[in-house]
């Protein structure tokens, strides 16, 4: 059996896949020994198959495996995420409740606040001079534009005003209220940090 170049080209892919009958294979082998052009086509095609078949041809984007695993995790173990989310929410709730308790405990030695929306006055220096009005619920810094009933004002120290149930004005006493909140957070963080270090 003898084959020409065109026949070889049409069978070269099958030849490389081992998918030609023995007679054709033998004829092609003979042809490759005699024909440099077909030999070049054969070697080139073999190179193509080898190079493209190598796993190094696969370039995946940076972080691909990690993102894939995370996506799978969301489906395969949704409860893990749910549990994690629940833990975060629960921790936040405990923290918020604790802040509230600390804030509440810091005003234990005061009179009942005159307003249910009252802010703790724990951050206000107790000897600071403030003004209150008989009908009002808040104590203010002198000159605060939010003072009501200006005709019946009296001046007292902040500690006294707190004992009488007055609470700080959230506008003019803002900086003390922020300090109050930060202190409450610090009080909470302190024992936690100690716990971590032990």
């Amino acid at each position: 059996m003898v084959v020409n170049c065109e026949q070889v080209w049409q069978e070269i892919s099958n030849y490389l896949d081992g998918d030609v009958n023995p007679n054709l294979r033998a004829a092609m082998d003979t042809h490759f020994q005699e024909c440099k052009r077909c030999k070049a086509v054969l070697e080139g095609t073999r190179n193509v198959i080898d190079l493209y078949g190598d796993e190094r041809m696969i370039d995946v984007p940076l972080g691909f495996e990690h993102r894939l695993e995370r996506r799978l995790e969301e489906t395969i173990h949704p409860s893990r995420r749910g549990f994690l989310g629940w833990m975060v929410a629960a921790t936040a709730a405990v923290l918020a409740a604790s802040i509230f308790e600390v804030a509440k405990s810091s005003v234990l030695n005061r009179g009942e606040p005159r307003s249910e929306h009252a802010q703790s006055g724990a951050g206000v220096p107790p000897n600071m001079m403030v003004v209150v009005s008989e009908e009002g619920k808040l104590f203010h810094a002198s000159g605060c534009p939010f003072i009501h009933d200006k005709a019946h004002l009296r001046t007292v120290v902040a500690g006294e005003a707190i004992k009488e149930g007055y609470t700080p004005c959230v506008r003019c006493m803002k900086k003390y209220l922020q300090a109050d909140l930060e202190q409450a957070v610090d009080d909470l963080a302190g024992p936690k940090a100690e716990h971590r270090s032990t």
Partner: protein
Amino acid sequence: MGAPTSPNYQVDEAREELLIRCVQDGEHEAFYELIRPYQRRVYAAAFAITRNNADAEDIAQETMLKAFKKLRQFRAESRFSTWLIQIAVNEARMRNRRARARMVEPMVEEQDAEGNYVPRDFADWREIPSETLERKEVREKLAEALASLGDIYRDVFVLRDMQHMSIEETAKALGISTASVKTRLLRARLMLRDLLAPGLGGTWSTRLHLAKGTKPW
């Protein structure tokens, strides 16, 4: 006819079967181990078809999720890797069809070229060491050449020569006859050889741009 053996893709089939059974029995952790050898290949199959990094990554993720959900339906009649790649190929082709449907131009189904393919270049190739692939520009050049093929040729070549699927598996995955697979594969291989032969002979370092219909080397 079986797929050619490649040291890159040898997996312990007994272990793979065990992992599949574990996942099917509810040990979901085993799924990560099961798919690990194929993550990159699934991405590569999706990328070769869509030619878009973001799409390929999304398809790879979707493929693995579908495989997890449908693993109970997997029967050992086919290789797990083939089953996985087939899911990815279907997803990628579907995405391509949707993208084309959105285009204003009417979609024309690509047809097989008529007549036999005649090699255009007879440059004498020396054997190309696989270390050549360590060079990024070589990998890019190969990817560029592959992307320049028509879809019907590229899909067959990707499944057969890059994913190491058999002729029959490739035919099944693409829904075409084995005869069509062989015809398209021959043309794809020869076209790639024509595009790459002289460059792989050593002139890539000086002329790297591949323009349609011309050779950069």
